[in-house]
Structure formats: C-alpha cells, structure tokens
C-alpha cells in the first residue's frame, strides 16, 4: 500500500533524482448509485442508478470515461447539458491542469454542478487501478494505460453489483478517445470505446451539439491538402528556445494594429521601442495577444508603419493578393522602426470572440466565415449546419488552429447570443468583449447574504458609536439607489465646525475569503449602463442594507473632523457608527436648498456650511497643483414605452457636485495618512505621478496633420478643443 515514485528532473544543467512517496488506499469509492460494495456517503453517490441511454450507437445504459485530449479539445461539447454520468479520472484531471488552466477551471465548474453528474475518480491512489510506468514506456502511453485500466476496473466492479439485472439494463462503461493507438488497444482489451465525434453525432435530441465539435485534426487538413503552404513554417519549440537563449530571437507579445490588418507590433519585455511586423509573411499567423518569437531584420530592411487604414475585404479563397500595392505610402519624414518577422508562436492567447456570420455564397455549403466584432482579430472559418438561422444573429466562436495553407484560422461555433441589432444582444456583445462579468450571482454567493428582516442588535449598538442623533444627509445623482456616502456639518460653540463623512460599512456584511467577497473581487466594480446596472454585490446589500437611505438606520464607517471656519483641520477621528440619514437628496435638490435663503432648517444650514468649507478646500488644492481630470458626462433620456433614447443632455456641474467631491477627497487623504501611520508596510496608497512626455505623442502626431503645429514642452496642460473650427490649441502653464 506504499510505493515510491522516482523520476529525474533536469534543471539548469544538473540532473536531480526525485523520490516521492505514493500511498495506495482502499477507501476510494466508485461514486455510482448502483454499487453495493463501496461504503459511500450520500453526497458521493453522483453517478445515477439508471442512466438513460440517449445515443443511437450505444442503446444500452452507460457511463462515459473521457480521455485527456477529448477534454482539452472538446470542452465546449462537455459544457452542454447533453452529456451526463461522466467519470473524470484523476490522471486526466491532472494532465488537463498541467496543460491548460482555463480548460481546467471550466472542467471544475462542470464537476461542481451536481446536475451534470460528473464524478472524479482518484485512480492514482486506488490500490487496484494504480499503474506503474514500465521501463521504456513514454509518459503519455502510461497515462493512456492508466485510463484503460480504470475503465476495465469500473466494468468489473459494477458487474458484480448488477447480477440481478436483465442483460440489456446493465450499465456499461464507454471510453471516449480520439487517439487511434489507444482506441485500438482498448478494443483489443474488450472495452467499449468510441471517438468523440462518433459519439456526439449519434446523440439524440441535441441538434446543436455537433456544431460545437472542435476541428482539431480532421476534415480541413484533408480538404485543403493539395494546396501550397501560404505561410512559412513556425519554428519548433526547441528551436525557439535556443534562439532566445542565444539572443537571435526575441520574445514578446503581439499587438495587432486596429487600422491595418497586415501590420502589428511586438512588445518585447525590457525594450522601450516596439518591433514592427508587416505583411503576411511577417505576421505569420499571429493573433492579437499571442506571445511570439520574433527575428529582427537587418537595419537596411527596417520599415515605417503604414499610414493607410486597411480592412480585410478578402473572400474565402486561399490566395494572397499582392501586398506591396497595399503597403505603399510610407511617410519618409518618420524615423524607421526596428522591423522583424514572427518566426514562431510561444503561447496562444485565444479566447472566445463575439461577431457575426458571413454566409458562404454557395448554397448548401457548411463552411462559412465568421467576422469578429473586434477589428484586431482575423476572420475565422467555421463549419455549421445552422447557417440560415445564425446569419441574423450575433454568435460566439473560438479558434482551434491555423494551418499553414489556410488564409484564415479554423474555429468552431460555441453559442448564439441573439438577433443582431437587438439592444440586449448588443449589450451582451459589449460586455463579453470587454470582459465584464455579468452573470447572475451563484447560490454560494447568495447564501452569504444576511437574512431578512435585518435588525440592529444590542451587541451592535454597544460596539459602534451611535450617531443617530446627528443630522446627516446624502447627495447623489437622481435615480441613485446605491447610496454609499453621507455628510454632516454642525457648528460648534467655539466657532469651529464638526464635519463628518460617513461611508456605508460593507465590511460588516462581507467577510474576507467568503464566496461573496471573491465574486466582488472578480467583478471589481459596479458597471453603469444607460438602462441597466450590473451590480458588484447582490441588490440586497448594494441597494438596501449597504445603502444609506433616507430615514433608515444603517451601519457606517465615519471620518469626523473638527475644522476651523478657514477649513484648517484641528483634529480627526475615525469610528464605526450607526447613522440615520435624514434625507437622500439629488444634486439639484441640495443646490436649491443652499440657494434658497428662506430655508433655514438644520439640513440647509449644514449644506451651506459644507459648501463654503468645500470652496476653501478646493481653492487650496488647486493652488497646490491639483489637476482637474474629469471630462464632461452625458445622460440619455430614454422613452419609457419604446425604451429608445429620445434626448441627450450634458450633465450640469453644480456647486454641490464639487462639494461632495471635496469632502470625499479630504476623507481619502486623511485615511491615507492614518493607514500609512499604522500599517507602514502594507498600506495601499494612490498617487498620480508626473505624466511622461511620450503620452502626448499620438496627440501631437494627429495634430501635425492639421494646420498649426508647434513643438511644445509639456508640463501641466489644460487642453481646449475648438472642435467646430478644427483647431487644437494647447495651452501650457
């Protein structure tokens, strides 16, 4: 029950022999409800007692075991609900983790979903299914053998519990693999085996499943076989490695040009200047974001970035047009940039892309072109039966490979989002392309929420400062439901002011390390769209318990100062508090209260006090060299019936906007001082350093094309644009 695993690890020229222990257990269960031998806990009974066979090729009830390649290549098929009762052996899980962490994460998500009935079988530590590597056997072969041994074990293990069933009701185990060798060996050993495409094609009631099959090693290569390669071959990984070590090749990330589909730049780490790559041979099948190996060309061949805006108007044919004609028009005034050719791809950073289908003009053809929404990404060739339905929809496609003889990369369809032009679909496309998490909150997150009705207990009152008697109010944009800050200002006997900023105490409800904390960290912010709001935390917190609503008692974290009438800080204190905001006002309402001198209630007086203090604070800040960075925002007025926008207006900046801003800034400053004092080693502070001159280069370049151009040195700049006159004036202070 105890063995050792020995293997050699080669590191920095020396060879290390590593010996590790490996324990074999007898308490690993098979996870099947049928089994009468294993002593399962209730939650471990994942695999069903009577799995429904829904496959024409395998009409008997069965469980499925997956091979590593199948999981890595066909993860999209696995995410569909059609496949259930699947056994994932530990060998496969470890290999997937090693090769692709994104596929591994998706697999873990599927396994975590109890409705999918995926069971992880720890075959490496099970005394009957542990397989040792034979001398001369390659690691991959050993892993395949381990998987086959597990399948055989499952068959025999389940057989003994099924003796009382009729033959055609007995549950069998099927291995799905694409490896020809492994398939042959499995058949020889008498196991049921099938390729993934075979299995998927025969699944009943799931028509879209076949489209999701990834085209890794099949039809395209055969069909496009006779054609000449269009691109130079990529270097092998070892050649790349050698090239980088010897300095002949450079490693960097490839950034495609948005304007010109035949141009891009490689950003090498540590080097300031980017390396230009042009032309199809230069780009050599790199996609925006990939990590590539680039070879610098000799200086005579260095070139300049093209000034033309080029779009890919090509069709499906695999013939390249004359490129020189396209890349003409070089600006002789600009200095030449280091230019190179991409010779190999170190790591692909392919993701899922949104876009539309460009139907093949030939009727009845299955091969179509997908045009991504992101201009930097090339078009993708996909195969689908549902072209008619999909041609009017926004779809998501992922890239599988880019063979040498194909003008475009090959990929497969993942899912459809909705009709083109439909507001929700377009919203969805934007959110996906900009990587904004917008799914519903999971069960785990919702279970972290406090139960309603929420009351303030005695314990809470004792551990927090009670500020419910203070006249606090909040000022926010109209229609705001997630009120996170509130202010108060009271005149003291000695002529000074007692001013406080109260921030909703979210940390009382969200504890570190919980599911809701992790989800909020992933989302990082609430995204405000015109008609929708994607919350960072569920609505119960963001709009209710953590929102300082008018006339409701809420928990807050307060920062209270004593200020002189000249806004000099006398003292500061911080505390956890309970507040009751008197009123939640909009900017306009607050402004009216300040301006209307007939109103003399405590709230109006506090607002006027805050306003005058804010003005002094702002003046002091500007004198000290603060930058005003905000650009004007606009608001859409949406028609309530048709949900169409009917008007656009610019947001008016009133004194109250500036007032709230000043006090929030003041609070930030004093919090920063306090945490730096108490946690000097780990306080997270924020600073705005001086702008580097290079940030202004694209602006100067664009300005050069207009009438007046003067080289300027820029320190702090206030930029006024007179757009209707087409002149840009840059004022320097």
């Amino acid at each position, binding site marked *: 029950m105890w063995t050792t695993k020995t293997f050699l690890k080669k590191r920095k020229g*020396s060879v290390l022999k590593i010996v*590790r*222990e*490996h324990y074999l*257990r007898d308490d690993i269960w098979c996870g099947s409800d049928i089994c009468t031998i294993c002593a399962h806990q209730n939650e471990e009974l994942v695999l069903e007692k009577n799995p429904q066979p829904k496959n024409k090729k395998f009409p008997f009830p069965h469980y499925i075991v997956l091979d590593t390649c199948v999981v890595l290549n066909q993860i999209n098929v696995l995410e569909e609900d059609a496949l259930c009762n699947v056994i994932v052996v530990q060998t496969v899980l470890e290999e997937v*983790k*090693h090769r692709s962490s994104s596929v*591994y994460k998706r697999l873990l998500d599927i396994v975590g979903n109890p409705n999918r009935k995926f069971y992880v079988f*720890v075959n490496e530590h099970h005394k009957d299914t542990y397989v040792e590597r034979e001398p001369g056997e390659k690691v991959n072969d050993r892993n395949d053998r381990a998987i086959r041994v597990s399948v055989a074990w499952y068959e025999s293990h389940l057989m003994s519990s099924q003796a009382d069933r009729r033959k055609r009701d007995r549950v069998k185990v099927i291995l799905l693999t694409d490896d020809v060798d492994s398939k042959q060996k499995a058949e020889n050993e008498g196991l049921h085996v099938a390729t993934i495409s075979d299995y998927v094609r025969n699944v009943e009631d799931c028509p879209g499943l076949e489209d999701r099959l990834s085209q890794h090693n099949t039809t395209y290569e055969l069909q496009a076989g006779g054609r000449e390669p269009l691109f130079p071959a990529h270097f092998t990984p070892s050649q790349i490695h050698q090239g980088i070590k010897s300095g002949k090749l450079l490693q960097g990330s490839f950034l495609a040009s948005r304007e010109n589909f035949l141009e891009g730049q490689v950003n090498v780490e540590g080097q300031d200047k980017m390396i230009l790559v042009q032309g199809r041979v230069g780009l050599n099948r790199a996609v925006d974001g990939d990590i590539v190996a680039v070879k610098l060309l000799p200086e005579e061949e260095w070139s300049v970035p093209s000034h033309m805006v080029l779009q890919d108007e090509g069709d499906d044919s695999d013939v390249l047009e004359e490129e020189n004609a396209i890349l003409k028009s070089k600006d002789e005034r600009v200095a030449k940039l280091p230019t190179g050719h991409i010779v190999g791809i170190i790591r692909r950073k392919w993701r899922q892309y949104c876009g539309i289908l460009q139907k093949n003009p030939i009727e009845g053809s299955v091969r179509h072109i997908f045009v991504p929404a992101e201009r930097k990404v090339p078009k993708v060739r996909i195969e689908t039966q549902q072209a008619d339905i999909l041609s009017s929809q926004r779809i998501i496609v992922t890239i599988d490979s880019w063979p040498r003889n194909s003008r475009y990369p090959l990929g497969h369809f993942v899912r459809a989002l909705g009709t083109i032009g439909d507001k929700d679909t377009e919203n969805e496309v934007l959110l996906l392309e900009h990587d904004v998490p917008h799914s519903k909150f999971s069960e785990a997150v919702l279970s972290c929420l406090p139960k309603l009705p929420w009351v303030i207990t005695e314990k809470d009152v004792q551990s927090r400062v009670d500020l419910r008697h203070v006249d606090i109010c909040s000022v926010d944009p109209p229609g705001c439901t997630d009120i996170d800050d509130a202010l108060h200002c009271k005149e003291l006997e000695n002529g000074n002011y007692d001013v406080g900023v109260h921030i909703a105490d979210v940390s009382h409800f969200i504890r570190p390390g919980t599911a809701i904390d992790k989800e909020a960290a992933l989302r990082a912010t609430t995204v405000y769209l015109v008609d929708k709001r994607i919350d960072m935390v569920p609505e119960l917190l963001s709009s209710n318990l953590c929102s300082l609503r008018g006339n409701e008692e809420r928990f807050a974290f307060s920062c209270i100062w004593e200020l002189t009438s000249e806004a000099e800080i006398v003292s500061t204190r911080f505390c956890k508090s309970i507040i009751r905001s008197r009123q939640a006002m909009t900017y306009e309402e607050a402004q009216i209260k300040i301006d209307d001198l007939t109103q003399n209630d405590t709230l109006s007086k506090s607002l006027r006090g805050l306003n005058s203090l804010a003005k002094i604070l702002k003046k002091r800040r500007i004198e000290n060299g603060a930058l005003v960075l905000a650009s004007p925002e606009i608001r859409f007025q949406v028609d309530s019936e048709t949900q169409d926008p009917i008007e656009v207006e610019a947001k008016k900046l009133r004194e109250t906007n500036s007032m709230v801003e000043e006090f929030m800034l003041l609070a930030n400053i004093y919090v920063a001082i306090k945490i730096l004092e108490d946690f000097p080693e780990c306080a997270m502070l924020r600073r705005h350093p001086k702008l580097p001159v290079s940030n202004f280069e694209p602006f100067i370049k664009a300005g050069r094309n207009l009438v007046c151009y003067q080289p300027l040195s820029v320190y702090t700049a206030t930029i006024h644009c007179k757009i209707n006159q087409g002149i840009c004036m840059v004022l320097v202070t």
Partner: protein
Amino acid sequence: MARMDLISFKGLRLDGRRANELRQIRCKMGVFSQPDGSAYLEQGNTKVLAAVYGPHEIRGSRSKALHDKALVNCQYSMATFSTGERKRRPRGDRKSQEMSMHLRQAFQAAIRVEVYPRSQIDIFVEVLQADGGNYCACVNAATLALVDAGIPMTEYVVACTASLANGDVPLVDVSNLEENSGGPNLTVAALPLSGQVALMEMSQRFHLDHLPKVVECALQGCRDIHQILDQAVRRHTEMSGSALGWGNRAQVDL
C-alpha cells in the same frame, strides 16, 4: 504551472494521505552492538539512525561536570548523500548545531538526570535520507535508542510536524515537498501521556486564529506516534526477552 494544491478537493494530499494521516513508520531497536542503545527509524522516506552511549564519566574537561545531574550531550549530523544534492559539510555547520541544541532541550525534559550525577549521556543521531520532518524522526529514533539503552525517562519524547493547507486545513506529518511549498510549519516535541510540550518551533508566522487547531493536530500526531513507538518497544522486549529466556517459559507466547 499552477500552484500545487496541498490538499485536493477530494481531501487527499499529494502523496495520497488524508489530512490527519501519518506517514508509514518502521523502526528497529538494538541495531548496533557497540553503543549502549541504538535504534533505526523510518518515517516515510526519512531514515534516521540513533545511538546512545552512557551514562559514563565526563570525557574531556572535568569542570563541566554537574554535581547533581547528568550532562546530556547530543550531536546531529546529516549524511552527505541524505539530500537531493550532495551536502558538503555533514556536521559542524549552523543548522546541525541548532538541531543538536533543540534535541538537547527536548531530552532534558524527559530523561531522569538526577539519577546519575557527575556523568554524561551521549546521543548521536545520523540522518541517512532527509525527506521532511528530520527533527521529528531524530527525536523519535533517539527515544527508542534511550529505551534500548535502559536510561530512565519520565515518559517517551515524541515529536511531530503540522502545517496548514489552503489556508485553513491542518495537515499532520509534512513531507519535504509540502514543507517547501511555502506554508507555515509547526514542529512540536511533546510528552504525550501528560500532554506537556518540550519544544515548539514555527517556521513562519501564521494567524492566531489557526494556531490552536494546528497545535492540536500536531499533539494528536504525537499521541499516534507514541502508540506506534510503544508497540515497537514491547515487541522488541518480547523478542529479546524470550530469546534470553526471561520470565516463565510457560507465560511467554510469541
């Protein structure tokens, strides 16, 4: 490559043990004939030899002798072939000196030194293969050797390590791979029956909230090891006793 998870979501560690399971322990007493007491102990892949000489006259300077107690002298050394890369200095380097001091501290707590005034007890420990938990294996082996030498002790001294996986699951008896993965390690040398702790060492800081459960995990590990060592001692006594014909022949049953 992804960071190694010390404990998978199925509850198994990298080598297949669960969080509260010890590594396989094998031991043998009386392996050498020259020292007064000796023992060989394997804890997983960590293999340790211990030899005990004494009590005897103080070697070297007489001035060091204590008038009412015995002097306990420990020496810890690692064989050059014990780690992955060959070690250049088997004894006399800082780490070995520190380990020797710790061994001394642990055994001073348990050996009945007032029985042998003005004398010296030597404990030599040699690590043949180091795979995590070296100190613990040394303490355990030395305990067996002391029992073999017949030196009176109040109790067995047993040591065990514990660590934290994924931030909050306590693991007992960590191997080298788990030690080096960056989690905090706690080593405890205790007298298991009375529950007293002779030595406690932490390799890194960790949060106060986790400390009680990690300490409890290590102490439970010590109790489990104590049972194993106790059985080994009884087995050894039976075998050597029956071979020499101690006790009634009719009562001895192998």
